[in-house]
């Protein structure tokens, strides 16, 4: 059964004020177009969970969509500070819940596996655990040693950007895999955005590459260039220049407001956004070609 719909429709249908949202992707495949659509539709009080809130949550926090962030590295990757989230935390206007990368990912693993918690080895660092009751210790019943445990994270909605999907949401992903699969399996609802919608025969030609199975997917949206200024391996490069530019833009609320007005509120969708970036940016972000060797699955 086809689950194809517009991104606008999918966001409207599956996201509600107050939801826990996981817009997935570790540096790679971050679904900015979905973040922008959520901003345009004016959602409030969201709990925004991501290992790295990245610019997508900086923008959503600046636009007033969030009441809380859940994170493990709150920086502008490779650049420095994530200024709007940081300012909101320092001003006391945004709640936060903090983990290390591994404990954040372990929470998704527990959520995705239907387990009550995930154990991790002790790291010796106790200051964060003292501030966050999510960290607990239990006795290993086999050795008697203490292990650290973290609770499951089960978002209401995960958004996962992929290279290609069929219309049921069976999706191929390559490049950095991050926490995509865990976020999808941990969440109640899954919205897949895809660079390309392909016939199911394409998916079936290479089942080892299917990261997300259609059976957990609620909506499939065709959104080329969804990830910009993040990237999609083999489709477009990371716009590092924009990550540097955002460091300047995000220094003042007025500049951020102007950015959102021009690039989010002022535009209907991602296609127009990409067009507005212009040919120079398109050219700069176009990757060269490097094909993998074909493999033989065998005809049985």
């Amino acid at each position: 059964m086809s689950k194809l719909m517009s991104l606008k429709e999918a966001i409207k249908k599956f996201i509600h004020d107050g939801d826990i949202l996981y817009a997935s992707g570790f540096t790679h495949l971050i679904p900015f177009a979905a973040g922008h659509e959520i901003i345009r539709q004016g959602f409030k009080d969201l709990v925004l969970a991501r290992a790295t809130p990245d610019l997508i949550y900086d923008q959503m926090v600046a636009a007033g969509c969030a009441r809380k962030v859940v994170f493990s590295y709150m920086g502008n990757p490779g650049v420095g500070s994530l200024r709007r989230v940081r300012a909101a935390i320092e001003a006391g206007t945004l709640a936060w819940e903090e983990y290390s990368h591994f404990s954040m990912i372990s929470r998704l693993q527990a959520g995705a596996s239907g387990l009550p918690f995930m154990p991790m080895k002790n790291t010796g660092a106790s200051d964060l655990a003292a501030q966050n009751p999510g960290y607990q210790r239990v006795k290993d019943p086999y050795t008697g040693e203490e292990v650290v445990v973290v609770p499951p994270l089960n978002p209401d909605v995960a958004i996962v950007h992929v290279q290609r999907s069929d219309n049921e949401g069976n999706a191929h992903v390559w490049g950095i895999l991050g926490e995509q699969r865990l976020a999808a399996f941990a969440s109640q609802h899954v919205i897949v955005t895809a660079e390309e919608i392909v016939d199911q025969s394409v998916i079936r030609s290479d089942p080892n590459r299917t990261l997300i199975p259609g059976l957990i997917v609620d909506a499939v949206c065709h959104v080329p260039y969804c990830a910009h200024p993040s990237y999609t391996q083999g489709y477009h490069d990371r716009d590092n220049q924009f990550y540097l530019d955002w460091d300047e833009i995000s220094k003042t609320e007025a500049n951020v407001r102007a950015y959102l007005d021009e690039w989010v509120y002022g535009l209907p969708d991602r296609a127009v956004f990409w067009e507005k970036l212009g040919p120079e940016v398109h050219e700069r972000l176009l990757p060269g070609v490097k094909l993998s060797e074909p493999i033989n699955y065998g005809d049985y």
Partner: protein
Amino acid sequence: MTEEYFYNPTELMVVNAARLLRDGDVVFVGVGIPNLACNLAMRTHAPNLQMIYEAGVIGAQPSRLPLSIGDPTLVTGSLSICSMYDIFTFYLQRGNVDVGFLGGAQIDQFGNINATVIGDYQSPKVRLPGSGGSMEIAAWANRCYIITPHQKRRFPAKVDFQTSIGFLSGGDARKKTGVRGAGPEAVVTNLGLLQPNEEGELVLTAMHPGVTFEQVQENTGWQLKKSPGWTVTEPPNQEELRILREELDPSGIYI
């Protein structure tokens, strides 16, 4: 006599960090200076070094300098890609990582690192990015290196917040936690090298050419001890500088 070349403080740190790496090391790499140090080591004395990244990349061969830790250039031509859960469990927690690189806003007398907050956690004066992968890297990599400019505010006697551990309060405090890694082996700065003594206290073991002990002490927030066998580092040589400037960072992004 060694011929001398002009070099800047960053080049000095990269070269000295690179020299600490051993051939065959599996290194959990960060962007920026650690990435340069690994690539320099691979092109000099450690051709079999393997770079792995927390994004889930094993055996990366980046053809350009990545700005972020998840750059697509790390993927193309790498040996393997796995999920973040796999990289932190199969590789790091299981004990398959030799070297971790760490950084932070503060490093204290016992090599503990603060990358989380200046001031009170609940009402932060300056909110920093937080742990990322560093809490586990510091605990579980066989050994760790810290690279940072040498400034007094970066080297307090005690960090405001322990994001990741060195030797805690010293002595056998780290050992008692049961973490598998041996902890920080060296802190490389623009002035020299600090390394833990038997008590886990960071002491000065080497100074770069032309640096005085007084200069290092002035930039350190505790009464710094000088190791009895302290040395002066070899200045960066022509080949190291050539590789850095011509091959690794020709646009001068980091150096």
